[in-house]
């Protein structure tokens, strides 16, 4: 196979060379346990401190408010479960949305079985949370609002500042899953009144297996993993030193290049969206056209099924993803696409392409030609298309 065109950067990203270079010495040379007292242990400790500072700076947070975890899912689990425990005296009500990542939704299911009351807010047709519904859902028992910064499937960016204000007015903790947003859009935890924030290293050209939970000073949640004094006694376990080093470098890199990189991505994103919508009939853009992650393209093609489309793209060397049920191993298509009001049949025919700084216009031109050819072919085989055309002729 020739060159691969990688359009699945929301799934994971290529680890940047400078990230790998920065990490390597912490495997074979500076491998000391940061909790020990000898010299190489000191180097590990310094490296962690630096990584923490680099990340805190991106968020306008304090370094001691960054708690490293094994990834975004752990951070989400921690924020929800520990808040539910720590604030049990105040209440048991959590407000979230229908379009969260499963790390939030499945944790909410679990908490419901432990007695939590969960409100799942609706979103509009572009995937934006309805603020009046949020206000109306708040009760004296509400202990937490958890709303994602930006959606992983359709790229919609939520009105985080407004949500933070509502949470603050009602004196309710506000957690945001920023796994897709961190390093892609500017985030200021003070400006947005964010109390907790989850993020993951491998989404921003950092390593896999490392993430963090930002916990604002004063938030009373306790340890999720017991067994040591690491992370200010809130997350036991010997630190993933190379991971933290890599994450720090990746975060700094993402912040430093954000303006230029995302401007280029937005241009390419809108170029591709424009061409697809113009040149392929019976398709629609999913997610907000403007309040959208710079790298996210999500389009539903009527009368075709997503997995078929993905296999055909893969045969041409194009890596993308779909909200089709077949790609998730369940019978239902993406809960996000259903929440924005798509009928099942159209949700099954969705294609998500998430670009990166490496994506070129030529990549997208080639991809578009493959999509066109594939859609034509799949529609010619589709009984739904046959029925549709016959109906049109009547």
């Amino acid at each position: 196979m020739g060159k691969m065109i990688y359009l699945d950067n929301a799934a994971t990203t290529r680890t940047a060379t400078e990230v790998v270079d920065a990490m390597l010495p912490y495997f074979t040379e500076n491998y000391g346990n940061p909790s020990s007292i000898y010299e190489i242990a000191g180097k590990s400790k310094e490296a962690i401190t630096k990584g923490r500072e680099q990340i805190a700076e991106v968020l306008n947070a304090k370094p001691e408010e960054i708690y490293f975890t094994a990834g975004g899912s752990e951070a989400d689990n921690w924020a929800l479960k520990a808040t539910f425990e720590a604030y049990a005296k105040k209440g048991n009500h959590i407000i979230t949305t229908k379009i969260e990542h499963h790390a939030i939704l499945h944790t909410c299911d679990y908490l419901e079985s432990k007695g939590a009351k969960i409100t799942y807010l609706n979103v509009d047709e572009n995937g934006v949370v309805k603020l009046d519904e949020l206000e109306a859902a708040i009760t004296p028992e509400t202990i937490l609002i958890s709303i994602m910064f930006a959606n992983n499937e359709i790229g919609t960016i939520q009105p985080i500042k407004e949500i933070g204000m509502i949470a603050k007015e009602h004196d309710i903790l506000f957690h945001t899953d920023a796994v897709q947003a961190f390093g892609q859009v500017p985030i200021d935890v003070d400006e947005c009144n964010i109390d907790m924030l989850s993020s993951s290293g491998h989404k921003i050209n950092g390593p896999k297996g490392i993430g963090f939970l930002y916990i604002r000073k004063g938030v009373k949640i306790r340890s999720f993993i017991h067994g040591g004094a690491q992370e200010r006694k809130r997350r036991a376990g010997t630190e993933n030193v190379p991971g933290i080093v890599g994450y720090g470098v990746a975060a700094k890199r993402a912040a430093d290049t954000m303006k230029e990189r995302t401007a280029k991505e937005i241009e390419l994103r809108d170029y591709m969206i424009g061409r697809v919508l113009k040149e392929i009939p019976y398709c629609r853009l999913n997610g907000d056209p403007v309040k959208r992650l710079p790298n996210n393209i999500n389009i539903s093609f009527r009368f075709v099924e997503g997995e078929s489309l993905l296999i055909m793209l893969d045969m041409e060397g194009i890596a993308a993803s779909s909200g089709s049920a077949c790609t998730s191993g369940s019978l239902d298509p993406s809960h996000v696409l259903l929440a924005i009001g798509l009928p099942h049949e159209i949700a099954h025919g969705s294609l998500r392409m998430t670009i990166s700084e490496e994506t070129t216009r030529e990549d997208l031109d080639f991809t578009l030609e493959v999509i066109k050819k594939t859609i034509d072919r799949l529609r010619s085989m589709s009984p739904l298309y046959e029925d549709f055309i016959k109906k049109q002729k009547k």
Partner: protein
Amino acid sequence: MYTEKVMDHFQNPRNVGEIEGASGVGTVGNAKCGDIMRIYLDIDDNQIIQDCKFKTFGCGAAVATSSMATELVKGKSIYEALEVTNKAVMEALDGLPPVKVHCSLLAEEAIHAALWDYAEKHDIKIEGLSKPKSDIHEGEETEEEEY
């Protein structure tokens, strides 16, 4: 995740299309689950399937099982076609991933649905064939959106 045979039948599906004035047409599956199969049969006076075509909306396995099912029933009598089970389709494809087994069941059902349609149209009874379920019209109202 798919065998070579599945990939071959997905990439080069046999017997795609429609048959004008088919002896029997069967459509099974539903858009909700993301799989719809339609099979057309051309059956002669001796009850031999002379031609068979299909159209499928679905994943790679759905396309491949439809394609293989049409190959397996072509040239057979209607009673022989009735014996083409989902297992036979799966074996002919060298297997399917567990989550895709329902696709082969759909292929079997599609053949049965087409045979049922043939039997109804010709007012005959095919021993061992029961009325197939079809629920593809579910949610049809919501399909008429503007694009």
